[in-house]
């Protein structure tokens, strides 16, 4: 549905997007992930035909964004980063304008506006001036304009920014529902958003794509070794030594303090260790070791790499690759 081949965008001396290529299949929900200023918005604006790429080809539904921009624009619903809407119009008047601008035939226009108002939960505010609405409602108006004329492709640039947590959950659920029958690209720098909404993630930093894979593959790829976290009531040094001798273990280290837990005082209390290992699962071996020595076993669980870890690792690695 969306094909981007070797797209570069230059703003004067600044290279905003550097030879980016990716494809998005029909019906996929793809997350664009990257720090601020990474080039996410630029790629999205190219796909929405706001400006053409400096070089390279971008196609939506088979139409080139440069030479067949009107066809592409008919197919794409775009939610700009600033969520800009005409704040001096009423919701209904604004969406009426959008429907007309997007070629919805006259006799279907009122019906279409009604449908979008219903599906975005704007019914109570439909006659209010947009500028007087709360941020959450304005955001919904922004999404409503993207949905008008029922486009096949939705490009949403940071749709949940500036919303309260409840609205964020609501919008995410909404986007997930939309993704069932449409192709959606959404950008964000909020990581959980990607894992709850998207099928696939494209990580972009400094104008380049670092990875474009499903979350599961991404985890597997970055996690050559696996980890087990063990909480033991017993002597720390002996425990470390015992675990290190288990087959396949690469490293044993004390678990750092986490938000809800502090390091135990020296000498007493439980010890938390993270055992990093290769090959087959070692949960059994770990617990047997503990029990054989007569220590107390409080917890054994595997530690998954979170999206945060993956993200930081990718960005970090790309920074290092560049320096070398």
């Amino acid at each position, binding site marked *: 549905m969306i094909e981007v081949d070797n797209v570069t965008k230059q703003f004067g001396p600044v290279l905003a997007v550097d030879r980016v290529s990716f494809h998005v299949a029909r019906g996929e929900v793809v997350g664009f992930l990257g720090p601020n200023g990474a080039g996410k918005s630029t790629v999205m604006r190219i796909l929405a035909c706001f*400006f053409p790429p400096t070089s390279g080809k971008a196609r939506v539904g088979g139409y080139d964004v440069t030479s067949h921009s009107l066809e592409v624009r008919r197919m794409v619903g775009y939610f700009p980063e600033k969520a800009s809407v005409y*704040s001096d119009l009423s919701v209904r008047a604004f969406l009426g304008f959008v429907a007309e601008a997007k070629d919805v035939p006259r006799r279907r226009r009122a019906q279409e506006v009604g449908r979008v108002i219903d599906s975005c939960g704007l019914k109570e505010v439909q006659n209010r001036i947009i500028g007087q609405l709360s941020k959450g409602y304005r955001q919904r108006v922004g999404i409503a304009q993207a949905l008008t004329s029922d486009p096949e492709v939705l490009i949403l640039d940071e749709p949940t920014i500036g919303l309260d947590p409840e609205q964020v959950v609501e919008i995410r659920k909404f986007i997930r529902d939309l993704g069932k029958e449409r192709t959606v690209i959404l950008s964000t720098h909020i990581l959980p958003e990607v894992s709850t909404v998207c099928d696939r993630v494209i990580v972009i930093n400094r104008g380049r794509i670092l990875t474009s894979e499903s979350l599961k593959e991404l985890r597997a790829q970055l996690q050559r070794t696996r980890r087990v976290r063990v909480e033991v009531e017993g002597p720390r040094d002996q425990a470390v030594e015992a675990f290190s001798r288990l087959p396949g273990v690469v490293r044993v280290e004390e678990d750092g303090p986490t938000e809800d837990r502090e390091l135990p005082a020296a000498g007493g209390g439980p010890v938390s260790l993270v055992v990093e290992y290769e090959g087959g699962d070692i949960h059994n071996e770990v617990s047997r070791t503990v029990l054989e020595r007569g220590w107390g076993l409080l917890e054994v669980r595997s530690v998954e790499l979170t999206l945060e870890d993956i993200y930081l690792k990718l960005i970090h690695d790309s920074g290092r690759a560049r320096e070398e």
Partner: protein
Amino acid sequence: MKVWCVFKKELRLYFGLFIAYSLAASFLVLSGYFFYTDMIFYDLFGTFMDITSSLWQYYFLDLRFVAMLIIPLLTMRLFAEEKKLGTIELLWTYPLKDLHIILGKFLACVFIFELMVACTLVYLVMFASVYTFDWGPPLAGYLGVALLGATFIACGTFISSLTENQAVSAMSTYGLLVFFWFLTWNEEALGPQLIGIVSRLSLYDRFEDFAKGVINTKDIGFFVLVTLLFLYLTLRSLESRKWRGMR
């Protein structure tokens, strides 16, 4: 029709924001006051002379001045506001052609301006109820005001497309319009050859024939041409986003 769609949206904004009303109020107060003083002047000193040279000419030159004051304030927001608020991003990603956007906006301004001008016809109707005169010359003058206004609006539309600051847009439009006006004030400074060319290019000198009640197809053609030129420049200015480094 896409032009119609942008046109309606612009009108909705102009009237919804009371810009149209407040500008119309200023326009009518100023033009009404000018008509009143010109009429008194004619009544006191001009009745033995030709009404065209002692009333209409003054009135239409005054109206030209009021148009110059009002139009930059009308056109300043056309593109500048959309750029500032980011709504231009919507317009450019909807299936609208740049030409449709420009024409819709330009025609909305022209419509509002001509509506204001049409309101001033009330003065003439009232004047006609107490005094008999030939309607030909003033109607030629009105045609001139309508054309001159459209040309000014095209200037303002172009300048608004260059900036995202409404104040800058208005000030630069004033600069351009006033420059056109002053251009031919000092004939000696320009020299005899140059003055001939410059006065033919001056929007204000072209208008003077209309004020005298003379409709000249050359003048009409000139105004239409300048209007089209500025609209074309606007189109090129909007297209510059495709190659310029704009964020």
